[in-house]
């Protein structure tokens, strides 16, 4: 059960799991290093130059992040990652509304898609235990939000809508500007988890009327352990902090800012701003090549999620007659996954694909392929060969068990 060709035998697998994490761009690493060893001061030390230099670097990074989403630097709150940003956005908005009631009707209702990332759903569940109400919207097979259903779900009590910008498993891009317009008209806060979308597609918090946006460093060739939450200033969005203490980040998020990580995240955003267009075109070409080749070589292959509204490097397919677990085991020379890495230790059907209405068999047979900045055409071709061979072996193996052949089984 090993499809590794000799030249691949001692190397790392071809990495097609760029939604789980991306490698740090060498330009990002280079930008970070001086802040580990030379300008190591605590950025909150206002009394000396080491602190000033660190804070100046953080401010520059804040500007780079803001620039990528057309925000004001003062609207960027650094966090430890997108999970914290999502927790802060959702719990922070809910807690603030409860602590500072303004209207006669309490704002205690939240709307999210059933396909949101675990950290959004878990934050919602935690709020339900505190007495908030949450509507989890169904999505059609395309994975795209049904705007009429969204409108119908909003009430006078609705505080916040949380809809992921681009999906981590299936890659579909939601109609952010339309959602933003609906939310603004109904005076509902619009939060979007843009961990996957940032730097991959244009995002404009003004044009899209986004109030809160979660971002992550390590999904766009920056380091792990840093992310940010965009918090709109006009009209002002108020949150209760999740982490209190020294009052950093305007009181919204206490804790010493990790200068090198912030710098790396900023640099990653600056690179994305400069290179996004070309990179997206290249990745879309590679993805189409991947999809076409797979479809030619493997019958019974179905794409999950809408193809028209999709991140350029993202593909999710189900392969009839196989299971993702078997496929991954049969292809050690490519790094792929069944879905979200966070829960991938458990091999149960993706709740996301089930929410799209796919059968358990199809959900179980789905794999996620994520192409990135460092993926080459030969990586794609190699992956197609590996997957096609593995599918053939698995299907032959199953056939053998069925008593209808033995040659392939011997070879495996």
């Amino acid at each position: 059960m090993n499809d590794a060709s000799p030249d691949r035998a001692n190397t790392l697998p071809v990495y097609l799991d760029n939604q789980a994490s991306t490698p740090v761009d060498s330009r990002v690493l280079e930008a970070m290093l001086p802040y580990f060893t030379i300008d190591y001061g605590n950025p909150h030390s206002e009394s000396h130059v080491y602190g000033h230099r660190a804070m100046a670097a953080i401010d520059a990074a804040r500007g780079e992040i803001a620039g990528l989403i057309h925000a004001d630097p003062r609207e960027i709150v650094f966090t430890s990652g997108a999970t914290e940003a999502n927790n802060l956005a959702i719990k922070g908005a809910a807690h603030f509304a409860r602590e500072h009631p303004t209207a006669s009707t309490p704002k205690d209702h939240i709307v999210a898609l059933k396909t949101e990332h675990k950290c959004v759903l878990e934050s919602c569940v935690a709020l339900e235990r505190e007495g908030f109400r949450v509507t989890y919207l169904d999505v059609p097979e395309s994975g795209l939000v049904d705007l009429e259903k969204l409108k119908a779900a909003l009430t006078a009590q609705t505080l916040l809508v949380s809809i992921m910008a681009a999906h981590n498993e299936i890659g579909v891009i939601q109609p952010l500007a339309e959602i933003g317009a609906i939310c603004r008209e109904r005076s509902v806060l619009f939060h979007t988890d843009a961990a996957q979308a940032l730097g991959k597609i244009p995002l404009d918090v003004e044009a899209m009327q986004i109030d809160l946006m979660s971002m992550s460093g390590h999904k766009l060739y920056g380091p792990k352990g840093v992310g940010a939450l965009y918090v709109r200033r006009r009209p002002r969005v108020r949150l209760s902090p999740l982490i209190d203490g020294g009052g950093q980040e305007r009181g919204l998020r206490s804790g010493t800012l990790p200068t090198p990580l912030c710098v790396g995240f900023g640099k990653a955003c600056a690179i994305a701003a400069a290179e996004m267009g070309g990179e997206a075109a290249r990745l879309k070409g590679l993805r189409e090549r991947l999809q076409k080749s797979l479809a030619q070589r493997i019958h019974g292959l179905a794409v999950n999620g809408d193809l028209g509204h999709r991140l350029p490097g993202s593909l999710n397919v189900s392969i009839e007659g196989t299971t993702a677990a078997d496929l991954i085991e049969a292809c050690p020379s490519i790094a792929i996954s069944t879905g979200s890495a966070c829960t991938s230790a458990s091999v149960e059907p993706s709740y996301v694909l089930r929410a799209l209405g796919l059968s358990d068999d199809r959900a179980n047979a789905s794999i996620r392929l994520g192409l990135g900045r460092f993926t080459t055409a030969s990586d794609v071709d190699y992956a197609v060969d590996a997957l096609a061979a593995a599918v053939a072996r698995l299907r032959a193996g199953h056939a053998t068990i069925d008593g209808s052949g033995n040659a392939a089984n011997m070879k495996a």
Partner: protein
Amino acid sequence: MTRETYLDWNATAPLRPAAASAVAEALALGGNPSSVHRRGRAARRLVENSRAAVAALVGAPAEAVIFTSGGTEANQLALLGSGRQRMLVLAIEHSSVLQAVPDAERIPVDGDGIVDLDALTALLAADRRPALVSVMLANNETGVIQPVGEIAEIAHARGAQFHCDAVQAAGKIPLLIAETGADLMTLSAHKIGGPSGIGALVSSVEVAPLLRGGGQERNRRAGTENLSGVAGFAAAASAANPGEYDLVCGLRDRLEAALPEAIVIADGVLRLPNTSAIAMPGVPAETQIIAFDLDGVMVSAGAACSSGKVGPSHVLAAMRIAPELANSTIRVSLGWSTTEADIAHFIDAWTALYRRTRGRKAA
């Protein structure tokens, strides 16, 4: 160019070379530790090896270590995640403890900043609800070390849990979590020569998560692990050597002895070997800090976290130090690479400033 002398180690320490290498290697490694494939598994191994190294810093089992984004988050997790109905915190705790539970009951300290054990006993006896006692091992502004073993005994005798913020003490003095009696202990990497953005809560008791999501850290702290952070933290933890601080302590003591008419806060009690809170009578701390910075000497007026707001120190106020004296107190903190020349630079700058300001007053 003027000579630069960094004496603000309690705000942050420079990265240890071993930690720098570990960080760079981990950044190059990539991979999400939760991914099942080979690259993910390599990242997972790095996280788990790092966990063991951080646990070893305080003699804890690896599974007790919950990685967080730093000391502030670890303190919040300890207090908010404990589920305890009563919170008793020392009056001189770091702001990340005080702000986490603003309505917590405050345990007073004496004039040297040491916990009042009788007051703690009385507070615990006054109310039978399950409590959590949070007392730092060593104070960030004065370096004063608390009798944590006795605190743990008193707390446990009344069914309370004991949380100890050991951010400033770790790596500077010998530290075994069992000897402190702490059920929960906070650690931070960037105070011991690791990178910023990573810390840990070492916990032998259940904690409810503050951040929910993918179920990382055994459901106690969601979010993709900060791979370079944990690797750098582990390298710094392994490199930590309280033995180095014998030399540091000698430098600190010489520094304190060389300053004319200086008042050293709590110099008669057990303190960290590297920390000194020094008052220059009659000269505001802000004036001192600006003057020192112009001379290339970097010190602080207290905690860096308060983000520039130079207000009276709650630590010195709780010790009932007169406001005039508190307002003229600065924090000088040394580290493993502090030299004789650094100390001489500080003494020269201090003495020159003191003569200047006294001369002005006399005129």
